């Protein structure tokens, strides 16, 4: 366009939070540095292993502690039966699994991930639409965050499309 333009009406891009988890590009980091991870995510730095379930029937054995990070041990996708099919399926060579979320107090809950894996939160066979997403602190091991508004109750966290069989994972209540 050749004409000079001063465009006062700025058109913003349309956000669809429930379908918008893809992470942006970041400059490559020579060293991983978690010092910039905020204090409310302190559970990220002290993680314990926790195996994912493959079916909804087994998910009670995989309850995620709120505020405490885990090193999720995922399953080959062929061994996972999702209660609700993820909006973005992982490949057959990727990993995934199911975790139980017991929410005692309604609020916004942030799921923090060490990769760009795709996640869904499901209740009664219905996906909960996320309300925000973003990257983790630059050069940290935290790569992706997704925030879901949750009421008190029980949910299933679905994970798919992780490139490795393990995944750093933390769910905490915001605010």
């Amino acid at each position, binding site marked *: *366009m*050749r*004409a*000079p*333009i*001063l*465009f*006062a*009406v*700025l*058109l*913003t*891009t*349309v*956000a*669809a939070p429930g*379908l*918008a988890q*893809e*992470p*942006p*590009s*970041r*400059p*490559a980091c020579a060293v991983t540095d978690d010092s910039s991870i905020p204090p409310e995510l302190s559970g990220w730095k002290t993680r314990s292993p926790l195996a994912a379930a493959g079916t909804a029937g087994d998910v009670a054995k995989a309850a995620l502690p709120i505020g405490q990070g885990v090193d999720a041990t995922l399953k080959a*996708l*062929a061994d*996972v*039966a*999702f209660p609700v*099919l*993820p*909006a*973005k*399926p*992982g*490949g*057959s*060579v*990727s990993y*995934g699994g199911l975790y139980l979320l017991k929410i005692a107090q309604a609020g916004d809950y942030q799921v923090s991930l060490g*990769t*760009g*894996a795709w996640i869904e939160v499901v209740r009664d066979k219905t996906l909960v639409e996320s309300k925000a997403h973003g990257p983790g602190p630059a050069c940290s091991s935290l790569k992706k965050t997704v925030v879901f508004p949750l009421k008190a109750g029980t949910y299933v966290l679905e994970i*798919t*499309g*992780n*490139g*490795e069989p393990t995944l750093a994972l933390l769910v905490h209540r915001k605010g």
Partner: protein
Amino acid sequence: MKRALAAAALLAAALLSGAAAPTFDWKLPPGVAPPPVPADNPMSEAKVELGRRLFYDADLSVDGTLSCASCHEQHRGFAEGNATRPGVHGTPGRRNVMGLANVGYLTPLTWADPGQATLEAQFSTPVLGDTPIEMGMKGQDAELVRRLSADACYRRMFAAAFPGDREGVTVAKAAKAVAAFQRTLLSWDAPYDRYRRGEGAALSPPALAGLAVFEAKGCPSCHAGPNFTDGRFHAVAAPAGQDRGAVEKTANPADANSFRTASLRNAALTGPYLHDGRALTLGEAIVGHWGAGDGFASGELAALDAFLASLTDTSFVRNRRFALPKRFCGAPRRR
């Protein structure tokens, strides 16, 4: 002006007609010609169905984390919401993801490579390429074939898409199928399109005024034709970073910092904008063009805003024929 636009559409239709397979139902509105189709990759419903499945299959990436649809999201006009998108290994993306509306009509296809002329050939850039690594399958052709061949439904879909070919699953056939699916990503039902087809009320008075502004200010000198791109490379924005544009491929100094004119179809959905996604809004993108700075009266800007919004085709971004399939070979998908 309306007659001029109609004439341009007819000219485009005339130029493009004749190459499509006559038996394929493109589901086009009257008067719109289908995109050209290579003689060695005729369209068929079976091939499009296969290509659609492949488009959404993350097994096309080395670790199963990225599909074509990871970066080309339907609700964004098959563009992506970040400035650039990292590849499977976290390598930063280099250029903004372009939308795919009417991509079958466009050539060259990408921001800065005049040689990217067919969708079949372009398939290898994200899947097999390494500058930068996107899906990371370079040297993994056999692995890709193994993954797809392991699925009995895929074997049947390849056989149906390429009848008479006994070679089975190949990367080249996967590329052809994805290209065929992409050619069906047709967007001709924006309010602007309906206006061109004679629905005078499809464009609001502000949008009509915006169309006049768009023409009067010379925007169509580059954002030309039914898809609002002349398919040519222009240096319109200040250089930034290491990306030198088309000159990297042509070695012609005249191509320095030149990038292909972006289509404006569904522009309100396809941000951020410009080749590196530096512009978060259309306004920033316009201001980012060389020479921008002191142009429009406030009324003209509001009108132009309305016109650009009229290029959004909601039926395109909601069309289930373009969405992630729910069933393969008659059975519900399992992952």
